[in-house]
Each structure stands twice: as structure tokens, then as C-alpha cells.
């Protein structure tokens, strides 16, 4: 592990000038990233005595208001868009130690134009997902004449996988005399880097803020900019070379200090996760009688993978997200629904669900039932007929008292995937729910909804309206759930019900030693 400031630190400068405005690779809801300042690759071989490169901090400036995504980029293949089109495979996901087991790192799929494209193309993409399963889907047609240097994030079908190990093929159709070239990339996030208004830069202190990476020889770094317009960016990445020293020991308390976090990373490996948090279509906003919040759920929730030997579970150790003005993202543990209710012909039928599971929190000796601190009513079938459903939820509160009720009066005809916060409508001084014993719905004739016991793991501070498209570092919650294989993490968008395309969020899963 790095031994202090012994001269092994250095910095890289990056610069990028984008002479003309670009275009999103796909249409509304659009994907709007482009290439940012260029950084060199990690030296290969590393200097004698060095075992890895640790990014320490980054300074940045951009003439535009646009956060950057600092990431490692693996070249999965190249595309020739001319004629019938051709995909040439390159690399696959690197195999690294994470969460106690050495295995391929799941990556976020991206396509980067490397020349000006002519016309449009429709891609059918075949991959092996994060579990190695074969997946294939077709994207909508690209926008016409995508400019050089654009970065698009192909979105698989809603509810499908969240990461790729390999791209096995990309075929293409459509267009009129199409041409152009592109890289197919797998991205492993390091950090979103906020750049605020056009005059003001920022420094992002990675290590000090709990973002720990040991990059191997030859690792390719990229800065991707959230935005496609012309401008100029400057970047300075400060780093230090790691040196072999002693035996990594792992950590039962990885979040108690930077040193413990680095021990955990060195022994069992952190898993960086980037999500293409896609929020579409638009949903129904909550009002004074139905949660007082606009909430949206992403197309993709993340399922915690298996832990390796010596790892009890994982905690979320860093979270960053990019959102528009006045919005935010909550990364929530999403257990199985607590219960659901179906309206058919005006008749309400309750189906019981699963009480909140038990988990161990960091610092506690044993597992205990986790009360949901952010329960929501999730619409799973659009409501119709009649008007303004009244939803009565009978529940057991966080203290174990049963027979409590929460009543929501919904907006008329809430559409599928709408979410309504239940907290403002809990009975008396209740703040949480352990289980749901009944749900009744009246007022409308058709519809379906379920109660989901979300448990916040991390959240992004709400951006000020003058700092549009900026991302803010998370403030970690006071307690951390030790997540297990199969646990689902959902990025919930707060503050709007309008559809949106790519909103990158990323987090680290840090191993807790058994």
C-alpha cells in the first residue's frame, strides 16, 4: 500500500477543444455525452517498484456547465458503419479481485464516434451480460450525422441486465449511404467530477472522499463530458504510484477511515458500478394527499452479486450521480414488495407480500429486521375508471405495533411506474414500516399498486437551479446496511416526473471482511 508522500506522486494534464456543437447519439430521451480532456494511459510497464496507480484528486475547468465522468475504458471492439456495417471485437472485461473473488468486472456499455457519421444506423447489439449470459437487443435508429467525439450509452430493454462482460457482435441496418467509425467501450467508473458554472472550476478529492482505485499497468482512462456543445476543457489528475508493502488484511469496518477502506480494497477488492439510470416514460406527480414528491424509478435496478471467500457482505462506500437542476437521486435498497392490491371492476383485492427482511448493520453484532424509512406506493398498472383512488394501507410500524393505517388520496389515473411517498401519511408519529397486513383501494375501477419498503443507502444532494447538469457528492447515511447477494439497489429520481434519458450514477460496493 502506498507509503505516504515519498515522491511517488505526479500529475497528468489533459486538454480538449471541441470546435463545433455535436448531437446526441440517440433521440429523446436523449443521451448527451461527448469526449472530454484527453488523459494518458497508465504506464505499461509501471515504474520499477510500483504496483498500481492510485488516482488521488482531480482539478477541472470547462467553458461549459457539464460534469465529467472519469472512468477506465476497455476497448471492446470497433465499428465500421459503411455498407452493411462491420464489428471487430477487441477485448473483454478484465478479470480482477472484487468482493472477495477474482472474476470479470461488469462494465457500462458505451459507443464513441471516432469520425463524423453520415446518415443514420440501427444497431442490434449482442453481449454477454454481467453474469455471462447472452443478451441481444436492437436500439432505435441513431440521430442523423452524429459528429465525431460523441458518446452514447445503448440501453437494453427495461428491467434487463445492468453490466456487460463482452460484446460478441453488433449488426446494423438502415440509413442512406451511411459511413463512419466508432469505438465500442466498456466503462468502469472512477468518479463523476463536478464542474459548476462556466467560470468556476472544481477540485474533486477522490481518496479523501472515499473513492479508492488501484489501476493496473496499461489501464486506459477517459474523461467523458455530459454535454455535446463546443468548448474547451482542462484537467489535472493527481495520482500516486502504489508500492508493495506488507500483506493486505481486509477490514470489518471499511468505512471507519480511509486507511480501512484501502485495506478492504487491497484484500478483497471494491466493485465499481455505473448505471445508465434511464427514467422513462413520464409518470404522475404526487400531491399534498399522495406523498408531496415527484419520484421516478429507473429502467434498471442493480442486483448485488455473490460475495467471495472471506467477505460477509458489502456496503455502499461512495455514490455520485448527475442530474439536472433542482433534482436528486436516492440509491435505495429495494426488497420484495410488502404487499399489493388490484382493482378490477371496482373490486379491491389484496395480495400479501414479504415483511421487511433482516440484515446486519455495520457496527451491530447481529442481524435485525430493517424498517423501511422510505416506503412508497408503486403503481404497476395504470389506473382508470372512476376518479382519484383512495388507498388505505394497514401496516406494522417500526416499533412493532400492528394495526396502523396510512391513507393516500391519489391523483386521477396515475400511470404505470408512478411512485408516491407514504411517509407523510403514516399514522401519528410513525416514521417507518416493518410489514403490510392489508391494502384497500376505492374510487377507481382498474389499477394495481404495491407497497415497496425502500431503504435509503445513499443520496445525492439536490442541485441548485443555477448549477444545472451538475453532480454532487453523496452524504453517506448514518448507518450502513451490509448488503447480501441478491439484494436490489434502485436509483430513485426525486424532483420531477418528466422522462429523461441517460443520467449516469455510480457507486462502489466495498467488501466487509467476515
Amino acid at each position, binding site marked *: 500500500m*502506498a*507509503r*505516504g*508522500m*515519498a*515522491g*511517488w*506522486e*505526479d*500529475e497528468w*494534464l489533459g*486538454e*480538449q*477543444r471541441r*470546435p463545433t456543437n455535436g448531437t446526441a447519439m440517440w433521440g429523446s430521451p436523449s443521451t448527451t455525452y461527448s469526449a472530454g480532456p*484527453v488523459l*494518458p494511459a497508465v504506464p505499461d510497464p509501471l*515504474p*520499477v*517498484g*510500483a504496483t498500481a496507480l*492510485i488516482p*488521488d*484528486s482531480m*482539478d477541472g*475547468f470547462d*467553458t461549459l456547465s457539464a460534469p465529467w465522468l472519469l472512468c477506465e475504458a476497455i476497448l471492446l471492439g470497433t465499428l465500421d458503419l459503411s455498407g452493411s456495417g462491420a464489428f471487430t471485437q477487441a477485448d473483454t472485461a478484465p478479470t480482477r479481485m472484487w468482493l472477495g473473488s477474482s472474476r470479470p468486472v461488469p462494465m457500462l456499455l458505451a459507443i464513441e464516434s471516432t469520425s463524423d457519421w453520415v446518415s443514420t444506423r440501427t444497431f442490434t447489439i449482442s453481449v454477454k451480460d454481467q453474469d455471462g449470459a447472452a443478451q441481444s437487443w436492437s436500439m432505435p435508429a441513431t440521430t442523423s450525422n452524429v459528429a465525431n467525439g460523441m458518446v452514447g450509452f445503448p440501453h437494453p430493454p427495461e428491467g434487463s441486465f445492468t453490466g456487460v462482460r463482452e460484446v460478441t457482435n453488433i449488426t446494423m441496418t438502415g440509413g442512406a449511404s451511411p459511413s463512419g467509425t466508432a469505438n465500442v467501450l466498456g466503462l468502469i467508473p472512477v468518479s463523476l467530477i463536478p464542474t*459548476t458554472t*462556466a*467560470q*468556476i*472550476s*472544481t*477540485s474533486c*478529492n477522490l*481518496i*479523501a472522499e472515499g473513492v479508492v482505485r488501484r489501476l493496473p499497468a496499461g489501464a486506459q482512462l477517459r474523461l467523458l463530458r455530459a454535454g455535446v456543445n*463546443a*468548448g*474547451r476543457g*482542462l484537467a*489535472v489528475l*493527481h*495520482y*500516486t*504510484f502504489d508500492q508493495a508493502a506488507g500483506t493486505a488484511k481486509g477490514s470489518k469496518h471499511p468505512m471507519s477511515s*480511509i486507511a480501512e477502506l484501502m485495506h478492504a480494497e487491497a484484500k478483497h477488492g471494491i466493485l465499481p458500478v455505473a448505471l445508465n439510470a434511464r427514467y422513462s416514460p413520464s409518470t404522475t406527480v404526487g400531491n399534498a394527499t399522495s406523498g408531496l414528491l415527484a419520484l421516478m424509478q429507473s429502467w434498471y435496478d442493480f442486483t448485488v452479486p455473490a460475495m467471495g471467500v472471506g467477505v460477509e457482505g458489502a456496503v455502499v462506500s461512495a455514490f455520485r450521480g448527475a442530474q439536472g437542476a433542482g433534482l436528486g437521486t436516492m440509491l435505495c435498497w429495494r426488497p420484495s414488495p410488502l404487499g399489493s392490491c388490484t382493482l378490477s371492476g371496482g373490486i379491491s383485492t389484496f395480495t400479501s407480500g414479504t415483511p421487511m427482511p433482516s440484515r446486519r448493520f455495520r457496527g451491530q453484532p447481529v442481524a435485525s429486521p430493517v424498517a423501511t424509512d422510505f416506503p412508497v406506493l408503486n403503481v404497476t398498472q395504470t389506473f382508470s375508471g372512476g376518479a382519484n383512488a383512495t388507498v388505505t394501507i394497514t401496516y406494522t410500524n417500526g416499533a412493532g405495533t400492528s394495526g396502523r393505517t396510512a391513507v393516500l388520496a391519489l391523483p386521477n389515473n396515475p400511470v404505470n411506474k408512478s411512485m408516491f411517498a407514504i411517509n407523510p401519511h403514516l399514522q401519528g408519529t410513525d416514521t417507518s414500516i416493518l410489514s403490510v397486513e392489508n391494502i384497500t383501494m376505492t374510487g377507481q375501477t382498474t389499477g394495481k399498486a404495491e407497497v415497496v419498503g425502500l431503504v435509503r443507502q445513499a443520496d445525492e444532494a439536490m442541485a441548485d437551479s443555477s448549477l444545472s447538469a451538475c453532480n454532487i457528492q453523496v452524504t453517506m447515511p448514518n448507518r450502513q446496511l451490509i448488503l447480501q447477494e441478491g439484494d436490489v439497489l434502485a436509483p430513485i429520481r426525486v424532483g420531477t416526473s418528466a422522462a429523461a434519458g441517460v443520467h449516469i450514477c455510480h457507486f462502489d460496493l466495498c467488501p466487509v471482511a467476515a
Partner: protein
Amino acid sequence: MTWLTFDDALDEDSDHGVSVPWTITSSSATSATASSGYLTSKLGVSSLSTLWTTIYGAPVPSGFSDPDSDLRLTHMKLAGSRGGTIWVVWAHKVGTVTFNGTGNRFTHDACTFPLTRSKPWGTRVVAGWPLVSLTTATATTAPVIGSWKYNNQAGVTVTNSDTFTFPNATTAAGTGLMLHLEPGDLVTDITEINVTTAASAGAGTVYLLEPIAQVSQIVSGHVTQADMLRGSRFCPPKAVPPAPTSGTLDTMMLAWIVGTSASWSARIQFRFVKQGA
């Protein structure tokens, strides 16, 4: 001793820490355009300077000129008259350029580049950002640089032929112009600046900028600060100049103000500590 903890650094601060207050000034500049690289910038220099003929940098002790010392910038505080971004940089003078004639108008200083820094794994060449800081305003015509030649970080001599057009026929003295680079390039030396459209006047100093640290002022008049010790776990910036290949390097610690063309005045306080003293 090598710093392993914050307390190690603080212990040496109490014995060897150096405080450097600095009052800086800069005149208003001409805003950049797309054809002049988008980046509006200018240098911040000592308020005792005569803009823009005689400029002074930060009043650092003479020991700062020793490239072999391990002097670190641990803290910086700024109060300025404008919102904007400030990079504290080593401004290494490469040469001078004039814009009242066509052809190669660049004159290299006697000092030989590239500049180097000694690292545990060997010698590292300094690769930075190129900046022309106008010492005399242009007049009559907006000059055009048709091409310029530089050596990049790989030691390759590169010719950039992206037309660089000054933002105004009367581009103000003090305006900082960052020349166009090939994608992925940084500069280690400059050999030519070819003017294809001349003005009736105009001259500048050509610098290689090597950033030391950065701080931003959100609101005019407020104090902003950067903790390079705790905020940068392993990398408090090293604040000593590099070594030239031969000759004497003309370099100063200056402020490079980006993102605003307005005149600027500011008070900066630095804290430097020598590691391993």
C-alpha cells in the same frame, strides 16, 4: 522524514513552514472566441508589476528555486474581486512572439527545453499548456496564426494547422491566448509560431504553464480556500521549478485566471512546508 500521517506534515510545518502572502492584479482581457480557442484567460501578477512590460510573480523565498527540494503547498486561501477560476502555475518562459509581421515570428529564449523533474523512477519531462500573454495590444487587424510547431509529450515535433484567429483587431494587452493543440497533446517545447495575417502592432510572451494548484472564487469578495494536505491524500503539490536541459530557466509562480475577461485583484495566502527537511 517522509510524511505518513497528517501529523507528520503538521510537525514539519511548525519547524519549517513558510507563509507567503501575495497581492495580485490583472487588467481586463479580451474574451476568447471559438476561433481563438474558447478559453478566456489572463495572468495574475504581483501588484507591484508594471503591466505588461515588467511583471513579478509570487514573492517566494529564494530557496524555492532549488529543484531538488521537496517543498509542498499545503494550503491556499484567496479573496478576489471577481468570480472565477485561478490556477497557481509555474509560468516557464519559452520565448517571445510579435504579430506585426508574417512568417515565423517566434524567438526562443536562450534556455534549452525540455524541462525535467526528477522522480523516484527516473527523469520526467515537463509537459504543459501553451499560453501567449500579450504584452502589447494588437491594432488594426486581428492577427491570424496559420500554424505553429511544438514538441509534444512523446518528443514528436507536431505542426498544428488549425487557424487561430485573435478575438479582436484590438486584442488587449494582458489577454492570455491558449494555442490550439492536436487531440491528446501537451507541449514540452515550442519552435515556430507562423503568422499569416499580421496586425500593425502586437507582441507577447510565450509561456509553458505547469499547474501547481487550483482554487475557485464563487462570489466576488468572498474568501475561498484549498486544503491541499487533507483534501489531497497523497499529493500535496510540489512547489519547486523544474530543471532546464541547459541554460537558466526564466520562470515565475503566477496566477492564471480563466473564465473571465474582467480585471482582477486578489489577495492570496500560501503555506509551504518542506518534506524531509
